[in-house]
């Protein structure tokens, strides 16, 4: 496909979406430059131990992604930030901290998401109480193979708080981050597996088991692992004299407030559009939606297209997504891009 070889596409972000799209585009015969601000490709999945719902190792997905970008047509520049993007006719001139990139025919924004900063929910005492940690830090504990509290002992009771920074007007996030519920269920099971004597309590507002086999996982958590689910949003956490965390929550199903001590409090932090992504968006004046993510050209049949011709989206920069959806979204982006590059409307602009 020689006429494609001269087409240059720049993908910003080498996470799940970026790598998948890059691989697919390269197989179609396009030249791809993949720009990643971190030191290594893979994105958030890099620090994930196991994935829901089938508990496959994050490593496997990582390998898949590395396989995707292992292609001569793909040129990856790591630890690289975008300085500016300028549109010239139908070409994009991208300047990075490593210099000017070859002019691109299309830009694919795969800038992904930032994790919600739990310090903004002061009442949970993250960064103040030693044993308040995030879902990500728990994944790291799983990776390290041991779950210990700050006192260096295994927790007798673990609390998991859903919707931290999601569905919360107080921090300006109205959206649901989708994956936290099932992540909580998965992590609850993992805790029970590693520490059978440990009680696990999930504090949820709604259980949103949107994906295939998610509900089944939830059921398994209840039946096989006897994970306790309490419907109510934790209002505050404090430390008591033994240094255990005292959690206050309304047990909405009992219609009564409830307080209990936990040794470890895990915050299911949600997704926000990445700051770096939003900075780039300013250059290209891409539209940002109500939810802070990039707003797509059409919610039903154009959710890879942006408001700017030649700039496309893939993955969680448009909305909270799980890995499966991110990969499909990225592949769909490839189709959009190649049909755009082949289309005549582009030529007339020249």
């Amino acid at each position, binding site marked *: 496909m020689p006429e494609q070889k001269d087409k240059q596409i720049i993908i910003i972000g080498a996470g799940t979406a970026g790598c998948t799209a890059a691989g697919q585009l390269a197989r179609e015969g396009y030249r791809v430059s993949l720009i990643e601000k971190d030191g290594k490709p893979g994105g958030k999945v890099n620090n994930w131990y196991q994935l829901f719902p089938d508990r496959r190792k994050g490593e496997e997905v990582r390998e898949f992604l590395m396989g995707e970008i292992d292609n001569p047509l793909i040129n990856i520049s790591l630890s690289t930030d975008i300085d500016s993007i300028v549109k010239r006719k139908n070409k994009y001139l991208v300047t990075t901290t490593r210099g000017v990139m070859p002019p691109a025919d299309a830009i694919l924004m795969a800038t992904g998401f930032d994790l919600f900063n739990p310090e903004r929910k002061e009442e949970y005492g993250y960064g103040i109480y030693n044993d308040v940690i995030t879902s990500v830090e728990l994944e790291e504990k799983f990776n390290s193979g041991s779950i210990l509290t700050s006192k260096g002992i295994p927790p007798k009771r673990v609390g998991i708080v859903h919707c931290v920074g999601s569905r919360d007007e107080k921090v300006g996030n109205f959206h649901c981050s989708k994956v936290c519920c099932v992540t909580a269920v998965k992590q609850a099971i993992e805790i029970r597996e590693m520490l059978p004597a440990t009680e696990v309590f999930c504090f949820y507002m709604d259980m949103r088991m949107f994906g295939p086999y998610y509900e089944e996982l939830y059921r398994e958590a209840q039946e096989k692992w006897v994970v306790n*689910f309490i*419907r109510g949003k934790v209002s505050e956490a404090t430390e008591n004299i033994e240094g255990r965390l005292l959690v206050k929550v309304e047990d909405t199903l009992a219609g009564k*407030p409830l307080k209990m001590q936990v040794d470890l409090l895990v915050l299911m932090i949600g997704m926000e559009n990445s700051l770096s992504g939003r900075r780039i968006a300013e250059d290209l004046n891409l539209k940002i939606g109500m939810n802070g993510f990039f707003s797509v050209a059409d919610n039903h049949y154009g959710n890879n297209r942006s408001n700017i011709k030649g700039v496309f989206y893939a993955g969680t920069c448009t909305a909270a997504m799980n890995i499966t959806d991110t990969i499909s979204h990225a592949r769909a982006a490839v189709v959009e891009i190649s049909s755009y590059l082949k289309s005549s409307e582009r030529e007339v602009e020249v």
Partner: protein
Amino acid sequence: MKNFGFSSIKPRVIDYDRNNKAVSDYILKHEPSFALCIGCGGCAATCSAARFTDMSLRKLNILIKRGENDEVRRLMNKCMLCGKCTLVCPRGVNTRNVIFLTQQAFRKLDNYAV
């Protein structure tokens, strides 16, 4: 004790660490499906006793798990054991046995340990 014309109010809060969850454990041991409740309230909606009382298995289920035993005692005997709830439960909880075991557990609790 002086009377100042008012008295302190006992908090409604469920003190999970202080409550006795023996009954809950007893039921879980003998009827594992007890853990499957998702609080949908189907049972309470079809309940024969609920026509006349504040009986709600949905609520009872939670109160048992939280060790709110006084209220459990108050509610559990209102059940007629008719079994409609068992037929409607979307999670296949053996609700009838849950109540049966609850009553049994309290009977044991009153005589000796569960």
